[in-house]
């Protein structure tokens, strides 16, 4: 049994409902391969370090799961075909991830709120 983490970026304009929809689609896809999901949540909207599909911002989503038989290649080729997913990265985790408590679905991991404020400034200018 191995633990994996997939981080993927979706379009920054997506609202909560569409993010949930997106999350569920990916979750279902992963479950089809016999994975057990540990965590799946919205990491937050961030400014991208470089433009991806001409977009400067993106909403990062984190999915952590455990699986017996790895299916990274299949998942990657599927992710590549999804228009809504700008970028993705699957990594193997050394330890079992800590189960995250559902607060309000959004995590303010240090830089989160700051990033959003910076974004507002940019938009106003």
């Amino acid at each position: 049994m191995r633990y994996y983490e997939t981080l993927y970026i979706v379009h920054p304009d997506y609202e909560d409902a569409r993010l949930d929809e997106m999350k569920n689609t990916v979750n279902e896809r992963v479950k089809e391969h016999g994975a057990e999901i540990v965590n799946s949540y919205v990491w937050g909207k961030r400014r991208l370090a470089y433009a991806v599909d001409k977009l400067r911002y993106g909403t990062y989503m984190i999915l952590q799961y455990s699986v017996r038989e790895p299916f990274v290649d299949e998942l990657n080729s599927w992710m590549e075909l999804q228009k809504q997913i700008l970028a993705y990265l699957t990594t193997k985790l050394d330890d079992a991830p800590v189960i995250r408590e559902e607060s309000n679905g959004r995590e303010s991991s240090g830089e989160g709120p700051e990033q959003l404020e910076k974004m507002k400034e940019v938009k106003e200018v």
Partner: protein
Amino acid sequence: MAFMGRGRVCKFCEDRSLNIDYKNVKLIRKYVNDQGKIIPGRVTGTCSSHQRKLTGAIKRARNIALLSYTGNEFSG
């Protein structure tokens, strides 16, 4: 902070609780220069095993647009 004088000790050996994670951009950014290049361990004092992990994390972060490949691209 990342750059200590001579006789420095690896920051990650000193503080074992400090995990090298590609998602921790604040930490990783200290180990790349303005051009986005990885700073060698001999400069930062990071030991070889931690430097290896750090390099991997930086490369992952670049891949997923958390870190720039070339420095600040949107500064203009």
